[in-house]
């Protein structure tokens, strides 16, 4: 007997495929939201790193003690979701780290956070040099 229309099964499969397609397309928006969220974390991290950097730059050369400090979490209320690693070290004329005292110090600040997105970066680092006056 020749078929005159769709069977219920065919129709249901078609509808299922349509729903699946739409769901995949609409998934973009929650995806973009979490990406935006990560951008927000990145921006906050930059300012939280700057907070530390500016405080260190206000010190004198002698007050910058070489060593690594880990703040997890950062005590500042707006930065509590981050962990902050501050490393101060002596550098030689070729900007290589050295243990012996020189007249140049390097400050490295690394901000880390737990990213929801696996593909997005979840850390930012800043480096600056501080010379003896």
């Amino acid at each position: 007997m020749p078929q005159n229309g769709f069977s219920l099964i065919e129709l249901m499969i078609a509808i299922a495929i349509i729903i699946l397609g739409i769901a995949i397309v609409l998934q973009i928006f929650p995806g973009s939201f979490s990406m935006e969220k990560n951008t927000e974390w990145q921006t906050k991290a930059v300012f939280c790193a700057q907070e530390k950097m500016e405080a260190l730059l206000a010190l004198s050369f002698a007050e910058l003690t070489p060593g690594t400090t880990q703040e997890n979490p950062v005590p500042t209320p707006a930065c509590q979701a981050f962990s902050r690693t501050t490393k101060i070290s002596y550098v030689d004329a070729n900007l290589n780290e050295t243990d012996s005292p020189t007249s140049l110090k390097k400050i490295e600040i690394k901000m880390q956070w737990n990213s929801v997105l696996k593909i997005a970066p979840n850390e930012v680092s800043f480096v600056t040099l501080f010379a003896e006056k």
Partner: protein
Amino acid sequence: MPKNKKLKPQKQGLLADNIKLITIMKKLYYLQENIQYNKQKAFTLVELVVTIGILTMVVGIIFALYWTSQKFYQLTESQAEMLQNSRVVLERMNREIRQAKEIVTALSQSPDNPSSQIEFQDGHHPSPYDYLNSLYYYIRYYVSTTTGEMHRQYLVYCFDECSQCSNFFKWNDIQIINGNTITTHPCVLEDKIVGEFIKELKIWGANIITIVLQLEKSSRQIEIQTNVFTRNF
């Protein structure tokens, strides 16, 4: 073919039997055809109800997905807008406060009693107001509580009326005329909006100035905090 077809005069024998058989078969065929035709004439109520049910379900699911995506789109948009505003405002304030020569606003040393505005002497080239040849230009950042907009004022201080002022002074200069002490008053050269959605601005500190910016849009909030080391005091 007409249904009530008159039968031809009876014929005898095998031929007559054959004609009879063919006629009966023909009748049966048309009967069947008519029954089938009647069956296909319209949807039954059950079919219709099932169809509408499935349709409603599909539309419902699609609408729910659409609504969710719209909600996320709006969330993302307000989040991005708040972030852009906070970044632009905070970067600009940082840059100018870093080079400030003097802070006019009396700032608290602790976070307990923060200031909601800051005024300081501009340490950059006062473009496009260098033609005024003043030695003292001032910048003031404040938040309009009604609109939530961040304003940036560019100021000079005068003893004369602002409209005819040509001699400019420091913010705290005084003149004593006939025993009366006269203080300078601010003359606003420009007042521009530099950011939106600002809920609160908190500033404290002395050498290292802490700025906290709270933004709010569509009942979502973000808070950003940073420090600036003022190096020109």
